């Protein structure tokens, strides 16, 4: 029997798992897909929000600000990229400047440091490529950018290294409460635990509703994005928001930690919890709205577009608590934006609740740091050279757009909770994430996966087990 079963391997689940792995407890994560970071967490704006947006007094506001503050140490410990590039909220009408003031006050109430309002002239100096229509802006110095994938992997891997078990392709189908335990029924059989954590993203309402009479309802809120070539990655240095207008909520233009430019998201409430398709209307809307921010939209530089879902709960706040009428069942529910930023704080808050409930004792051998994958383009030339001395496969380029070597791909396959699919490797080491989107390297990556996992190339998947890439042999 487990002490804690965590359902969901996104940020929340992984952050909770990592925080709990500080204690002497038997813990497992049940993930319904084939990999970490496959659901809500895989597609978002990849920001560490300052925390000026959330309503004061909400859990969102509290966890956002706290999570943002935790990012420096966390990203250093886990060896992942993070940059406090700052954020701007653009205002396009003198009449709206009071709204910027309001936002600033709200932020200050939430405890956000480094907020100021800057005029048009200062704005021009900071961001020369934004339109002349912007008359003022709120500057938030504490906002940052982060890699959504590596944060998720790092949290999960570190939890794994500290003893948390992970079960993939394991979808929860129901719960039974016995006196001292929850029995979790899955497509892979039953699991038993003293406590269950529901961190199931857009499905968290369904799991919650299986055990509680107080119902939740989560709406998948879709956000569509354009990802641009690194060639235009420095179009803006800061994350640039738009002050909402009568035409609706704005969109964000931001650099990414890997040097791309990201534009989006839309905000559409949809029905389908797997509805991560893009639509013509959505993509058109981003292009249209980006014109308010950017002097010109870099049409020719789009390398991909994608959609992500946010798990919007009807109560419009994060829910991080033990379910009132289901003892030992804990929800991390309604974790929409700023969920990524808040995840370290969500992990801590939930772990504290469970520690107290189960009276868990701290371990003395918790490994707080994670070495992570040997990523050559994050190394100095000297470090890279030293690595090549030890293993020459770190000088063999496979993905030419992102300059990813064979050594990195092999390391990512064999890492803790390693990647086994094209998408899994793309998210771990960026092979195929570049401007040609795998056009050149996919055949080579398929070959490496096939060789390292000792499976035929036809069995290598894009992501899940229904996503074969090669359907057969040409005739001999």
């Amino acid at each position, binding site marked *: 029997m487990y002490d804690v079963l965590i359902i969901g391997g996104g940020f929340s689940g992984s952050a909770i798992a990592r925080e709990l792995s500080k204690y002497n407890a038997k813990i497992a994560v049940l993930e319904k897909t084939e990999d970490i970071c496959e659901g809500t967490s895989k597609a978002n704006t990849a920001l560490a929000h300052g925390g000026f947006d959330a309503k004061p007094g909400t859990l969102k506001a509290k966890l956002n600000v706290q999570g943002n503050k935790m990012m420096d140490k966390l990203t250093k410990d886990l060896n992942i990229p993070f940059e406090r590039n700052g954020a701007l909220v653009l205002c396009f009408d003198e009449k709206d400047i009071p709204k910027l003031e309001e936002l600033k006050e709200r932020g200050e109430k939430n405890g956000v440091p480094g907020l100021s309002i800057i005029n048009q002239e200062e704005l021009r100096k900071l961001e020369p490529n934004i339109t002349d229509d912007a008359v003022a802006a709120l500057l938030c110095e504490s906002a940052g950018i982060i890699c959504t994938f590596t944060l998720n992997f790092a949290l999960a891997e570190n939890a794994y290294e500290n003893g948390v078990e992970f079960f993939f392709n394991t979808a929860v189908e129901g719960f039974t409460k016995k006196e001292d335990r929850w029995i979790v029924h899955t497509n892979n059989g039953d699991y038993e635990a003293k406590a269950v954590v529901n961190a199931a993203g857009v499905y968290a309402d369904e799991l919650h509703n299986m055990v509680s009479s107080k119902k939740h309802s989560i709406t998948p809120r879709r956000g569509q994005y*354009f*990802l641009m070539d690194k*060639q235009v990655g420095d179009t803006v240095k800061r994350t640039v928001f738009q002050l909402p207008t009568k035409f609706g909520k704005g969109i964000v233009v931001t650099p990414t930690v890997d040097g791309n430019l990201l534009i989006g998201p839309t905000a559409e409430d949809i029905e389908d919890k*797997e509805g*991560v*398709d*893009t*639509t*013509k209307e*959505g*993509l058109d809307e981003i292009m249209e709205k980006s014109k308010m921010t950017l002097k010109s939209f870099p049409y*020719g530089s*789009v*390398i*991909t*577009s*994608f959609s992500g879902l946010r798990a919007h709960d009807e109560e419009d706040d994060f829910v991080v608590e033990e379910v009132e009428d289901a003892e030992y069942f804990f929800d991390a529910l309604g974790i929409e934006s700023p969920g990524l930023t808040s995840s370290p704080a969500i992990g801590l808050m939930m772990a504290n609740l469970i520690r107290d409930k189960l009276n868990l004792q701290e371990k003395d051998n918790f490994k707080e740091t994670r070495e992570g994958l040997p990523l050559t383009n994050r190394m100095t*030339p000297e470090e*890279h*050279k030293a690595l*090549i*001395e030890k293993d*020459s*496969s770190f*000088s*063999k*380029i496979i993905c*030419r757009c992102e*300059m990813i070597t064979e050594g990195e791909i092999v390391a990512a396959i064999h890492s803790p909770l390693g990647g086994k699919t094209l998408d899994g490797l793309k998210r771990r080491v960026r092979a195929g994430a570049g*401007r*040609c*989107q*795998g*056009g*050149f390297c*996919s*055949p080579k990556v398929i*070959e490496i996966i096939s060789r390292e996992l000792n499976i035929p*190339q*036809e069995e290598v*998947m*894009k*992501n*899940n087990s*229904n*996503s*074969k*890439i*090669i*359907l*057969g*042999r*040409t*005739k001999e």
Partner: protein
Amino acid sequence: MKEYDIVVIGGGPAGLAAAYSAKENGIDNILIIERDNILGGILNQCIHNGFGLHVFKEELTGPEYAERYANLVEEKNIEYILNSMVLSVDENKVVTVMNEEDGIFEIQAKAVILAMGCRERSRGAINIPGYRPSGVFSAGMVQRLMNMEGYIPGKEVVIFGSGDIGLIMARRMALEGAKVKAVVERKPYSSGLQRNIVQCLDDYDIPLLYQHTVSKVVGKDRMEGVVLSKVDDKKQAIPGTEEFVSCDTLLLSVGLIPENEISRDLGVKMNRKTSGPIVGENLMTNVEGVFACGNVLHVHDLVDHVTMESNIAGKKAAEYIKMNKVDTSGKKIQLIPDKGVSYLVPDHINLSTLSDDVTVRFRVTDVYEGAYVDVNFDDELAIHRKKPFLAPGEMQEIKLKKDYILEHQNTDNITFKVEAK
């Protein structure tokens, strides 16, 4: 640090021809750097025939054409290294290279020839909405998978883009037993060669849908189909014309982009239209001693043209080495694409470096029958050439005689335009 007179980046047809030509023009100390494990570049995956009609006066397959040039390079003892990635070139022409054998190392060049080729545009670049299932491929990737690795990606195929790669892959997949349901083209004409439309589609009863677009990818895990729509004059999908076509594979052949990341980092100025370097008649970029040729300069239809252009780059680089510098202080005549012409290569002629006739390559913006191409030296009509058929998919070339240019030294601009019937 090893030193070479000329370092050629890229061992595809452009790089090989440029190196060979430089050698023929008296330079011995040449190194070709190739990122793949074999010389010849993309030609090695082009197992169809039709290569070499101009250069070798016979029809060869891609690998055969590549082999001829690889053999020439071997015979001439031109040095080359394989599996080697150029990381950067700096303004002093120090080339930083990485490979498995030697790790990261630097080479000092006196001249550099850029011949890195091009890459395919991806789905993202053309904004096809829908999920992102497996089964969406660039045509070139499938060409490699099938022709070099022996795998077939799918059984029921729709091809988007009627460029040559798309057309050739339609036939290739049909030959392997796949059902090619349609080739879809947004324009009212193909951007591929006429002969390929006949030999790759007509002969196999594969329909070519003009003025259509793939308006959606259907399927979440593996592709289940595409939605096709008719497009209006602005190439926008017309609502209400959607038609679902089931397929497990979508091949994208929607344009090629020169691979100029190294060039850009080096400070080479680019032509927005071609996405390739701006070069003079000697194919030298704005960075002295750095030349460009082949698909990295502008995307060609025929390898034969790549070879001919690269011969010039090699020769001019050799002249540069022999003179040890280049005098660009002379008068510059600008070449200007006018009505009906989308771009011109070269971009200008430097009278102080002009040593031969100048071949100007260009594309037209539309399909024309029985039109004329006019070349004006300022206001003087210099060439009025009848062209029975002009299409954007077929690169054109017109030679400007050196003597004529020298006789018209006072010219500021040479303008190319199409005179439609």
